[in-house]
């Protein structure tokens, strides 16, 4: 379990990092917190010829309120996000999901940008990012562009980022009024990859009817899965147990085609999708009904 030989660079600025990535093309890998890449290299499953270590690029580490929402630098440690008041107020769904990401030791090192760019279908942050319609800013030596979450995740460990392109900023837009969010997952042990997880965002009008809903599931496909059918079923409806059951059922049977693996059969995953979707929606509705989004 020793990595194959590689060349190592530790730039101090984004521009230096981008220059290195441009120079080495797809032979280079950016190293963020290293919580996935380093084990993969030690197993020799990943054999990048060049590592561009971003840990000295201080400019990429920040959390700030921005246009009513929150912006996070790609190299911000997960632990910092977990403990941030700005996140708790501006992106409570992110705050709620953070403790489910592995263990404190891993969150001390793991970064938000690293997890999103790695795009593991069992990871919490991609699902949360899709649920919140997050905007990703990517830079390369040739320029900068913004990618919306629905376009960012392309499949198993695959994103819209091009070789030479670096994710630099993650922006969570502000939540509309009367919006409630909830995150739930079931894992074998706390901190394991989820067997199934769900991020839910529900917006209600003054009468308590649902005007917008995004339910995003993790560990049930090759990336975060937006349960569109389930979301549609909620539109214009007021909360009832029957409704939530019907929505959960739709998510489990129409929106996902979960895989079987050694930890969970497809049938078990479907059951978890139904149960967790229902439970998450109960919470999200409750929060939308009782509180303003900024003080959840």
């Amino acid at each position: 379990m020793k990595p194959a030989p590689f060349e190592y660079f530790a730039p101090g600025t984004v521009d230096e990092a981008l220059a290195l990535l441009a120079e080495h093309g797809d032979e280079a890998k950016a190293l963020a917190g290293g919580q996935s890449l380093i084990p993969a290299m030690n197993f020799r499953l990943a054999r990048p010829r060049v590592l561009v270590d971003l840990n000295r690029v201080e400019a990429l580490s920040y959390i700030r309120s921005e246009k009513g929402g929150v912006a996070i630098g790609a190299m911000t440690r997960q632990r910092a996000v977990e403990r941030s008041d700005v996140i708790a107020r501006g992106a409570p769904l992110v705050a709620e999901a953070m403790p489910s990401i592995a263990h404190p030791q891993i969150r001390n090192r793991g970064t938000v940008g690293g997890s999103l760019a790695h795009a593991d279908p069992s990871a919490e942050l991609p699902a949360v990012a899709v649920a919140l319609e997050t905007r990703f800013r990517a830079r390369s030596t040739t320029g900068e562009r913004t990618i919306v979450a629905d376009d960012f995740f392309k499949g198993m460990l695959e994103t819209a980022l091009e070789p030479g392109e670096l994710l630099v900023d993650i922006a969570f837009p502000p939540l509309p009024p009367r919006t409630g969010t909830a995150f739930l997952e079931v894992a074998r042990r706390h901190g394991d990859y989820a067997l199934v997880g769900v991020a839910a965002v529900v917006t209600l009008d003054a009468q308590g009817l649902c005007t917008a809903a995004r339910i995003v599931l993790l560990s049930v496909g090759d990336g975060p899965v937006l349960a569109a059918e389930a979301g549609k079923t909620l539109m214009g409806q007021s909360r009832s147990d029957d409704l939530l059951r019907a929505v959960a059922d739709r998510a489990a049977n129409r929106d996902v085609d979960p895989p079987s693996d050694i930890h969970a059969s497809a049938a078990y995953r479907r059951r978890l999708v139904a149960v967790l979707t229902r439970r998450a929606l109960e919470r999200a509705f409750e929060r939308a009904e009782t509180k303003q989004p900024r003080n959840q």
Partner: protein
Amino acid sequence: MEPRRQIGERVRRTEDARLLTGHALFVDDVRLDGMLHVAFLRSQYAHARLVRVDATAARRRPGVVAVYTAADLGDYWRPGPLLVPPPPIAGLVFNACTQVPLAKDKLRHVGEPIAMVVAESRYLAEDALDDIVLQAEPLPAVVDLEAALRDGATRVHEHLPSNVAAHAVQRKGDYARAARGAHTVIKRRFLYDRGASAAIENRAVVAQWDPRAEELTVWDTTQAPIPIRNGLAQLLGLLQSQVRVVAPFVGGGFGPKIMMYYPEEVLVPWAAMRLGRPVKWTEDRQENFFATTQERGQIHDAEIALDKRGKILGVRDVFLHDTGAYDPYGLTVPINSQCTLLGPYEVPNYESEFTAVFTNKTIVTPVRGAGRQHGVFVIERLLDFAAKELKIDRVEIRRRNLLRPDQFPFNNEILFQDSAPLTYDSGDYEPALDQALELIDYHRFVREEQPRLRAAGRHVGIGIVCYVEGTGIGPYEGARVTVEPGPGVRVRLATGVGTQGQGHFTSFAQIVAEVLGVEVADVHVITGDTREFHWGTGTFASRGAVVAGSACHAAATRVREKILELASHELNASTADLVLAGGKVHVRGGDPSGGIALGALAVKANPLRGAVRPGTEPGLEATAYFGPDRGSTASGVHAMLVEVDPETAQVEIKRYVVVHDCGRVINPMIVDGQIHGGVAHGIGNAFYEQLVYDEEGQLLNASFMDYLLPTATDVPHIETAHRETRSPLNPLGAKGVGEAGAIPTGALFAQAVEDALSDTGLEICEIPLSPNQLFALIERAR
């Protein structure tokens, strides 16, 4: 000053300061000048014919010093020894096939070593693995136990007529007749799978040949340094005294680090001698999943015959045991299953038949519990089903069948792993059951709490199971106790067993300290270094405290006699009037300050001038040995409360109670720790851990990402109570405890979860019980 009690005290572990501050030596800490590093090329196939291994390119890689294949080993290539010959069971079939150092013509499991690369660094050695060209023809993998026994099945060992590694039948009484006269016969099929030992430290070997001293030193993470020394000496053509094996601190043994003569263990010293440079190999976690022995599955078809009051008339059990690709450890695991099934119960008629099966999987040898779990699971589940059928409370059915104190010693009339008839030395089971009931508040829970919670829609369940554990088997261990001459009090204790975290440094010191009237801190303990002590077998079968502890006691007692003898001359008093306390000998009733300190007495025991009395041995030192007639039988009762979320199949342990009887307790804190660790292992086995092989014999979860160990947050607070029914078989009255906690957990878990889900009517006949599996069972019961 009066002698102070040390045995039975909650003495803090004296080794912990070294361990916690990083000053304890582990094998991987051994760094020597010019040391080379090893990586092994291992089979990716579960089963294949090995056609050719070409290491030419690897040998040319800069930094590579040597590459060895089976062909390069010459005469040194030979299968390993049969470590435990099977007991003399009438009609026994046993086919010994032991592991080979490097695969020659056939690959029999994933991870089997094919070539050894020795290089200037482990990185370079691993780079060179890619250079080795392998030609192999895949064969169908033998994975499923029942398929392995079908006619025409592919054979793991082609010189044998089938994949049968062993077949044994043991009988007591006449089960068929008992069943004919029974009120009820319950039959079920049980599957019990176990996993890896997953010690925190993987295996490691460092070897250094000193050509001037003509001495080989081997640092090895073994549980049995003395047998390894003797075996290596024989293999390498050296005198035993030319080989020193050191098992320093070892980060967990749990069975697989026993005297295995693993390929790596015999190749690293050979390479060090051949190359004239120190050589190190440290197993990485991935290798550990394939190359270190494991336990695995058994399939039991079992039945129990009872009268209408629930008295057991007999048990019949027919089971298959997966022994993996080789069977160097004989039949210890299935025989433990066979014997431990009998439990604390009176089973007048018993018929147990097993077939051990070769498969294309990693070798199976004992892992903490060593097959006992499987037996306990079968009998406890049978009793649960019988209780339901006969409408008897599950505690009551157990109570009616427990052996009574006046039945000991109790001969079960079948052979145990040590080849002696399985005889329980002593036990007092019913009070332990009652204490467990009281601690978990069984009757109130069943009558009040559970109905109330169930009415509120909660799925809560209770479990309570009994078990016995054969421990502390022979042959023997030894110890040497020396009072160090000089000012103050220092006692040295050397014993041959290795230590892997059990607290030997403290509990052995307590025994010696009590006998010699010194403080625990005054006793300097050395274990696991053959230069210090070279007679003995090792740490296994929950025998450290019982066998080595008794040897420490015997050696200390002899030294005590020498102390008193010499002191009686020095103090002009009869030995009967002398008191040994506070590190001094003084005359009873006299002023303790007038006594002689042990260090000063030791100086007098080794005079530089003058005459000594005829027959005098120098020094205050003695070596003694202890070998029990047979093993002592520990016992216990575990109880647990669980809550299950039937929607998600998640299980939460609410309470866990252990009432345990390991005879005389030397250090209650250490025994607590052993039980806590054992229960954690048991919970892992019951709920989290499983080695998942696919039909190609590939292990699908060979990392801690997918092989799930319970962590601190998954193991509940464990409430323990000790009972002390002393063993008559050793001077301490002790019984073993190392494996106890891990043994009944599966059976307990199944009973409690089944109870929590009693509204579904599901039956749990298998372990491990992941949420995925529990979900499937719930669905099936719907």
